[in-house]
């Protein structure tokens, strides 16, 4: 059971839920389950080939999964997965 932190721009696709508990063994399974439960999340997280989009970062604990084993990175009950999309605001 991993905990997934959903960023505010994507909470409109998770019924405003900020944290999801997901029963999974890898980051890939986590993503698969949350996009099954909340299909609207899918186009924001994954490209047409099913890979994590390059403007979305997924961190397992404090580390970018690209520096671990990407989608194969294992998770356990204490793992916190953070989804952090690019945002560009500031000036206006």
């Amino acid at each position: 059971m991993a905990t997934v932190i959903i960023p505010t721009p994507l909470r409109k696709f998770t019924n405003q839920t900020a944290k999801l508990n997901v029963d999974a063994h890898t980051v890939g399974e986590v993503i698969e389950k949350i996009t099954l439960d909340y299909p609207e999340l899918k186009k924001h997280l994954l490209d047409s080939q099913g890979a994590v989009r390059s403007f979305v970062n997924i961190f397992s604990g404090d580390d970018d999964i690209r520096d671990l084993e990407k989608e194969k990175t294992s998770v356990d009950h204490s793992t916190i997965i953070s989804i952090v999309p690019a945002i560009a605001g500031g000036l206006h």
Partner: protein
Amino acid sequence: MTTSDIHFSKEELARYNRHIIIPEFGEEAQLKLKAAKVLIIGSGGLGSPALLYLTAAGVGTIGIVDFDVVDDSNLQRQVLFDIHEIGKAKVEAAKRRLEALNPHVQFVLHNTHLNSTNALDIIQNYDVVADGTDNFPTRYLVNDATLLLDKPNVYGSIFQFEGQVSVFNYVNSQGERGPNYRDLYPTPPPPGLVPSCAEGGVLGVLPGIIGSLQALEVIKVITGIGEPLSGRFYTFDALNFESRTFHIKRRDDNPVNGKNPTIHKLIDYEQFCGMRAIEEKPVKEITARELYDWQVKGTPFKLIDVREPSEYKIVEIGGELIPPSTVLDRAEDIPRDIPVVLHCKAGTRSLKAIRELEEKFGFKNLYNLKGGILAYIDQVQPALTRY
């Protein structure tokens, strides 16, 4: 300029006393601040607190890049400005406020839109850049320009309740260079997928927090005190009051400074961010003046306003309100036998709505009001409220 050429007057020593008495800071760090040249890109939500604190702190030279003028809707968060500055150039208004705060600082104003033609010329004169811009093309432009010129880039970004901070392209005392924006986010989201703050909103206090953190990191980069936020990526969720600091690394496939760089000069960032491609897909447009002509001549047409109800309450020009999330559900109600003009605030949401209606329902009679209601106010009815 080295710090040995710089001295403080008695007034400056008194002004900076609370810095100088910190043992880890001292007069030496204060001298480094005075010797430094910092460029703040964007004097809006993030730039306001960054400029105020860096001016107060005694950075010797501060450059400000902004092409905009002060607007009523800025004052909810852009604490650098007040009601007397509405309609005036932001860089000029900023300078007036900041000179009153600290007359020992030199300001250099760049009242221009930063682009691939001028970015290197402007940035090369500074030691550190703080990026507080509001769109992806400029983010990548600032990133690449600071890489090409070998300058550290203190990054801050906000959206609604979320803030992000990092220090990019920082070389530490061991000579190790940290990651940059392209290592963190190799490509931008396609246009339209992530709304801007102008469309998605931002809580006014949030840029105050994130812009202040940028000022903090600028001071650390200049003075060498502490551990700058290099190789780390800070995120703040104001709604739940949760912050996290992630580890980030350089990537071999970075096209500017990875193992096999393919970008050696600034590129077309609008195109890189996919905006040019969308602009080229033609949608029929009407200017505010042409719309006004139709109105006065009684030409049959329908006007649809695809903004949010909260925006409609501020100002409207007689269109039927159909909020963007309901446009496709209301397609049946949109006439096909007369021209239909769609408008939003500035033209982006109405463009998207027209594309979707044309694609999914085969409409051929839709026109986008160029520049949205803002253009209509500017060109036809200046007495209406801008926001």
